[in-house]
């Protein structure tokens, strides 16, 4: 339930401009899908929203206030690389957020309270299909299971802003659909603002109320490092629109979704996703 304003944000690493001139107003309850070529700075953008990194220039406001200088419980995250806690079992990982909230001193609940927390967590584990792996440690989980655990962990806190970095990449279509459902339900219920980075355009369209694309506008080998990526498309989506009505946008974007493309050659790729859609 928060608005996010990004005002002329730049990000450089070691003198290399990664992102430049980002300007974005995100009203509350938005579901922003972010797509863009690999390595263009999507994760970096989320890291800035999380206060894990600071913009080199410009500022980010939440509800008109400058972004808190450190990560906080209002902003949940699912990282691109699985980042669950290796020393906690699946159930303990999921319940951790609840414990932090209810046990300010020990960070750990006992007895009745603990059972209750685990029960609440169980609910989310069920939603992500990990109930049976309840007592396993992350090292005994498959990649997709770890990713689902990370999702459950973040969702359980019902953050106001949720940052998702390719959260469904390692999931099979069945589970992925379950996750979509879960995500949309939670979003509608708790009215949070969601940023979702994904490589699956279909997913971006299906879930988002808004789609933004990152890309470098100017690009030739000698200049790499001097120009960063910025927002190239910013398209409002209606959740109720049938996907095929968005074919036009699709086509335009798919031409951009590669790193070495100069804008003169809009679509030389035969991406299967795009193809299938276009034939409809």
């Amino acid at each position, binding site marked *: 339930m928060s608005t996010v304003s990004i005002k002329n944000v730049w990000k450089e690493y070691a003198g290399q401009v990664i992102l430049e001139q980002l300007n974005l107003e995100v009203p509350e309850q938005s579901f922003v899908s972010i797509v863009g070529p690999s390595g263009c700075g999507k994760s970096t953008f989320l890291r800035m929203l*999380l206060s*894990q990194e600071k913009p080199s220039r410009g500022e980010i406001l939440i509800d008109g206030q400058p972004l808190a200088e*450190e*990560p*906080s*419980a209002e*902003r*949940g*995250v699912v*990282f691109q*690389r699985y*980042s669950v*806690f*290796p*020393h*906690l079992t699946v159930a303990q990982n999921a319940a*951790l*957020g609840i*414990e*932090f*909230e209810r*046990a*300010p*001193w*020990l*960070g*750990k609940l006992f007895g009745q309270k603990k059972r209750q927390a685990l029960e609440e967590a169980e609910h989310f584990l069920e939603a992500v299909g990990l109930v049976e792996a309840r007592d396993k*440690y*992350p*090292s*005994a989980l498959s990649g997709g299971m770890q990713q689902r655990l990370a999702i459950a*962990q*973040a969702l359980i*806190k019902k*953050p106001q802003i949720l940052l998702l970095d390719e959260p469904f990449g390692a999931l099979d279509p069945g589970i992925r659909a379950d996750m979509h459902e879960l995500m949309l339900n939670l979003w509608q219920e708790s009215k949070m603002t969601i940023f979702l980075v994904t490589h699956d355009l279909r997913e971006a369209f299906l879930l988002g109320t808004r789609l933004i694309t990152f890309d470098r506008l100017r690009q030739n080998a000698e200049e790499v490092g001097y120009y960063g990526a910025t927002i190239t498309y910013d398209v409002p989506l209606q959740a109720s629109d049938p996907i095929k009505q968005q074919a036009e946008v699709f086509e335009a974007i798919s031409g951009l979704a590669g790193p070495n493309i100069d804008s003169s050659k809009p679509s030389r790729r035969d991406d299967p996703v795009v193809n299938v859609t276009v034939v409809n």
Partner: protein
Amino acid sequence: MRRIINRKPDRHLSLFLALLPFMLLLVAYVVSSEIRLAENPGDKLLPGLEKFSAAIDRLAFQADKRTGNYLLWSDTLASLRRLAGGVLASTVIGALCGVSIGLIPLVRAGLSPLVAVVSMTPPLAILPILFIVFGLGELSKVVLIIIGIAPFLIRDVALRVQELPSEQLIKAQTLGANSWQLALRVVLPQIWPRLIDSVRLSLGPAWLFLIAAEAVASQSGLGYRIFLLRRYLAMDSILPYVAWITLMAYLFDYALRRMQIKLFPWFANERGH
């Protein structure tokens, strides 16, 4: 032909390989001892094996004429008490200070140079000052062990804390953890098994400092006995004492390793075994 890194010995071969170097050492000892004894039958440096059994029998199973104690056992008890005190205190200090230094930049700025400096100070050279502060009794021996190994433990733990992926700390903060909860639930539990490794590495130095402390002023203890025995080169007694210390240290090491695997199953898996 498999790569040598993939060839894993089975139980028997493992045991054989583990014992082999010790066997070789034993043989080397016996041969050198024989050579020296042939030259001087009274040689004290490398006594024959039968001398050892006599010395062990005397030290472990016969009451000392002067004190009525069974020396080996009373010495062991005295030393172990000091060692346990020193190692436990150092472990606690190592965990607390190490985690604080590794986790909290302000503490790191303030304490890490101090700890680095203390860890570099040769403690035996400032013994006089230690005596003044802690007296000559049991306390000063425990303190010497602490001064000897705690800085190492602190620095090792701090390094390990800093090696935790930063994503984990960020993640915990998004889950609402304050610094204290984060230390308690995210950092400390992941440090315990690593702390066990560090303690294992510092057991050797701990014994060293214990022995040094006991050589300074005491009436009992393994280090005390060794220094006393050294006064007349009674290697037939010193070597069994050294072997006994080594054996105990090795057993502690082994116990700690088992404990690590038992208590922290996730750690062994993470490591990829």
